[in-house]
């Protein structure tokens, strides 16, 4: 994954750029150039259409620029705000289009998630287990799915998840473990059915 933790000095340097852009929108260009690709890929993995991902990314930056005067520094990276806007735009797109929400994952990521929720006595084959896991994921709400995607399918840290979801790091951890626990229960229920 291309994202990395930003140090406090990097976050503050970015905040200085934001302040300049708040005074003159033309100075938003460095932030746009820096964050376009990560935001594009973030949307693409949830939409799976290149052109549409491009359009939605443009919309995210357009909204960010329009609402830039409302942005205030809270010690979080600027990208967290952009990811938040992107998530809202993705949700709005799926609400309007009534399409199935795309969830992209790698085999390794699914395997890690499968191992995390595995019961000790479970002797199922891995492939079978993963198939059942995908069926169980279907029962998760949109918000729960966002946590699973961020943590397992994109391998983000709890700090990053907390920044994007606007909760504390501890809260992000608790929520993720609760979702895993719920997923485990759904899986057992489906196996016994």
């Amino acid at each position, binding site marked *: 994954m291309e994202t990395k933790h930003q140090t406090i000095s990097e976050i503050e340097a970015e905040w200085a750029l934001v302040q300049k852009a708040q005074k003159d*929108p*033309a100075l*938003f*260009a460095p932030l*746009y*150039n820096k964050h*376009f*690709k990560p935001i*594009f*890929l973030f949307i*693409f*993995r949830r939409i*799976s259409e*290149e052109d549409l*991902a*491009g359009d939605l*990314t*443009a919309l995210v*930056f*357009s909204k960010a*620029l*329009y609402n830039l005067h409302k942005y205030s520094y809270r010690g979080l990276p600027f990208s967290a705000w952009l990811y938040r806007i992107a998530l809202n735009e993705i949700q709005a797109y799926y609400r309007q289009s009534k399409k*199935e*929400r*795309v*969830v*992209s*994952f*790698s*085999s390794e990521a699914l395997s890690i998630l499968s191992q995390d929720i595995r019961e000790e006595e479970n002797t199922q084959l891995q492939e079978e287990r993963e198939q059942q896991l*995908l069926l169980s*994921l*279907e029962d998760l709400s949109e918000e729960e*799915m966002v946590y699973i995607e961020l943590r397992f*399918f994109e391998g983000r840290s709890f700090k990053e998840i907390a920044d994007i979801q606007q909760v504390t790091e501890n809260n992000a951890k608790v929520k993720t473990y609760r979702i895993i626990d719920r997923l485990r229960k759904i899986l057992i229920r489906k196996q016994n059915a």
Partner: protein
Amino acid sequence: MPKYKFQKKSNDPSDEFIRSKMDFNKILQQQQDLNNYKKATKPLYKNKFFLGFMILLGVICLLLIFDENDPEEAPVKALKDSVVVDSLKK
């Protein structure tokens, strides 16, 4: 109907493709257009000059109303009128 469509992660679009989607000038223009639109469609009551004018008009109207109904002036006027009538009689 299923809520989610699970799919194995496909290859990310190339850097050239992503770069082709970048257009900062368009974003800037959109923002400018949106600002202009908001400015053009701003309701009259939110216009500070219009609001100021209305307040001023209200104050003037109130002054005129109170000026006409001033209770202290009424007896003076009546007194003046009676003086005029008396002088005419004389």
